């Protein structure tokens, strides 16, 4: 049985052993990356933002107090980092629209079998619909609908009240259903 996150962090604090960082990265990088993608909606940006978030998490290990689960804290840092990135990139994001989608469509036409092409078409519609949502609503969806956090955990991660989180989720789902014709 491996060590829990809290044990790992305690061991790191006492020993400073850099190998512990590797274990923490291995455990949580996937979650961080997966939480970030629905916010930034771009693979390369998601990699960069996930890296930045993970470095913040590692740099903050000394100040992690354990009032929430470590994984929830990781999501919190990931969401904050992605929202900061989006604010910085607001001007640039306007360019990631039709051209990018048509490029992806071309790739899938070239390389993917028909089944995947259908999935790809649906994925593009979902991406386009997600782009219409405010980032805070995307964050709520990312954590609850995609990552499976409870609404209370997601509220902690998003640093908002439970009611606000539920409202964001409701609005996001409503808008997506409308855009996707569900």
């Amino acid at each position: 049985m491996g060590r829990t996150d809290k044990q790992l962090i305690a061991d790191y604090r006492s020993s400073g052993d850099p190998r512990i960082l590797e274990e923490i990265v291995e455990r949580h990088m996937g979650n961080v990356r997966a939480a970030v993608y629905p916010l930034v909606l771009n693979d390369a940006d998601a990699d960069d933002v996930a890296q930045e978030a993970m470095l913040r998490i590692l740099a903050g290990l000394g100040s992690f107090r354990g009032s929430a689960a470590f994984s929830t804290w990781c999501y919190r840092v990931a969401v904050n980092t992605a929202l900061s990135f989006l604010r910085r990139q607001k001007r640039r994001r306007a360019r990631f629209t039709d051209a990018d989608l048509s490029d992806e469509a071309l790739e899938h036409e070239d390389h993917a079998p028909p089944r995947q092409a259908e999935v790809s078409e649906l994925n593009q519609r979902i991406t386009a619909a997600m782009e219409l949502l405010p980032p805070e609503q995307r964050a709520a969806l990312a954590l609850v609908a995609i990552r499976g956090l409870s609404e209370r955990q997601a509220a902690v991660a998003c640093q908002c009240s439970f009611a606000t989180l539920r409202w964001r989720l409701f609005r996001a789902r409503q808008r997506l259903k409308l855009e996707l014709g569900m």
Partner: protein
Amino acid sequence: MKQPLDKLLRDWAASHEPDAAARRQLEARVVRAARRKLHNGGPAPVPAPRHRPSPRQLHHLLWFAAGMAATILIAVVWHFAAAHAPAPAPAASPLAEERGLFAGRHRSMVRIFRETEQLFGSNLQWVAQSGDEAELGVSQTSADGRPLVVRLVIVARPLGNGAWRRLWETEVVARANATLDLTPAGRPDDRLMLWMHCLEGGAALVESRLMLHGPVTIEAETSEVLKFGATRKVTRVLHEGVEYLLLQTVAPVDGGESCRS
């Protein structure tokens, strides 16, 4: 559409997760950066992120290869570092700093070029490096132009303040009279075009066209005669209280002043 929305979203998100190899690469990148930052004492810059080639980037690669019939693009991971990790350029005079840096970068690029040349011989047209990422171009025919190393750097500082920061830098080894036309993977709006002609007497005509989109958009078109080894300020731009300089330094791979390779 009968699937519940959350299931659709989970499938959609899963389709954008990196595969195992890409995830390991990302993890390794973070661990390296963390070790530098947390265990070497003092703040260290996060290394320029490496973008794993996504299908879209591969598409750009194909477009690029098709657009340059004579050039086969062997590897693509060039990077506009400005948007991610600007490195400090602490000198009060960026020209003096660049002269010092160029000697080291020149040695490094010559080594890379020579090693690559062992693989491709005179078919090797150019090698471009930015951070620790490189691209190279190989033609289907051999070329005999003298290889030249050129370093391009953009530095910036608040107007009236002496602290320069290096925003972007790249080194290229290209054969004289070869045309380099580079669109960085994942950054379809960025572009570097370069053509150099060796002049007798220890100089080269360097023509460049540069388009970079970062916090600010930088476009520069230059045509300058540069003495070997001398750093020259080829463009100066003032924008919103910030002064930007494009600096270039050029020197032949194997020293000397002759244009014969």
